[in-house]
């Protein structure tokens, strides 16, 4: 599909609007939402020795199946049903893509550089430019 000049203009204007006021900002990034899970699932989901399951490197389908089941109440849970009910399909997918790219190793053994690359890969997978 070709982008018309008008569309480009509209896009540019709305981008400016978003920069300035809080008018209609874009959906939160998968990364920003995924960060919110860290106190339970470890920094970037990289906790591998706890009762709560790790999320880093989780295949997208397993993640989505789990979250949708929690949200719809078809998978019993202690806490995740409540958490999952806070997210739309699109938001869940953005987090799924991001978590799938996080390294499967404990946070303590991950360098900052390594993590920044992985986080960037996650953002790209979620279709977000960094």
């Amino acid at each position, binding site marked *: 599909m070709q982008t018309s000049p008008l569309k480009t203009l509209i896009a540019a204007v709305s981008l400016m609007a978003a920069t300035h006021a809080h008018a209609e900002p874009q959906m939160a990034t998968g990364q920003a939402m995924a960060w919110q899970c860290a106190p339970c699932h470890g920094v970037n989901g990289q906790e*591998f*020795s706890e*009762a709560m*399951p790790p999320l880093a*490197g*989780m295949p997208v389908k397993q993640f989505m199946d789990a979250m949708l*089941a929690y949200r719809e109440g078809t998978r*019993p849970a202690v806490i995740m049903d409540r958490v999952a009910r806070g997210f739309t399909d699109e938001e869940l997918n953005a987090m799924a893509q991001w978590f799938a790219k996080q390294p499967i190793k404990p946070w303590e053994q991950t360098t900052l550089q390594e993590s920044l690359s992985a986080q960037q890969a996650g953002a790209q997978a979620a279709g977000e430019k960094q």
Partner: protein
Amino acid sequence: MLKRTLLAAALFSVSAIAIASGGHGEKPQANPWTHFSLDNQIRAMPSGDATRGQDIHSQMMCNACHGEKGESPSRNYASLNGQPEAYTIKMMLDYRDGRRWENYHQAEIMVKISQALNDQQIADLASFYAQHKTQPWTYAQPLAAAEQAPTDKVVRKGDFERMLTPCASCHGAKGEGNGVVPALAGQVPEYFVRTMKAYQSGERHNDVQKGMSQFTHDLSDEEIQALAEYYAAMDRQ
């Protein structure tokens, strides 16, 4: 595939530094099993009822992690369906009494749940899981063609050079398990690898007289990974 191995390695490497937490809850001390004491203990258990077991499966929220009938919904939890009754009973007793404590924080859920159950309830659960046959794990990937033959050989014929008894000789031709020997068919591959690694390092040692751990030492990471995938996809039908 590399990822899977990494997951197991990750689970594993931290376990070495995970210390039993102070404060809340002390680790019970139980003597290691002998064949004799284990036999006696299993025989002394009441007989289970699968219908009651199903109820407990839901009441104790086992279904949150282990699925409706014991089939695990994710890489992070073990599948329980199709396990022989004696195996499930042994695991629950091992968690309860501190024999299965290979990684305290991860095992903590099972420790606390098993401590909240009595022998009858444990037997009922065991009966429930035994009633539902193993099935290929939902997310199993077919094993790469090149790995099929060598893996199949380890499973059925073992490896005389390395004194590896065929897995099937204890775990059954269809990975169905027998008595206190677990079923492997349909097991979650990450859990399989994690377990093998824990046996290898001695972190897990609730097997009777090293009955299992002795076979893990000579297996390579690649072989363990292939075995995990082989069994995850195994169909008993």
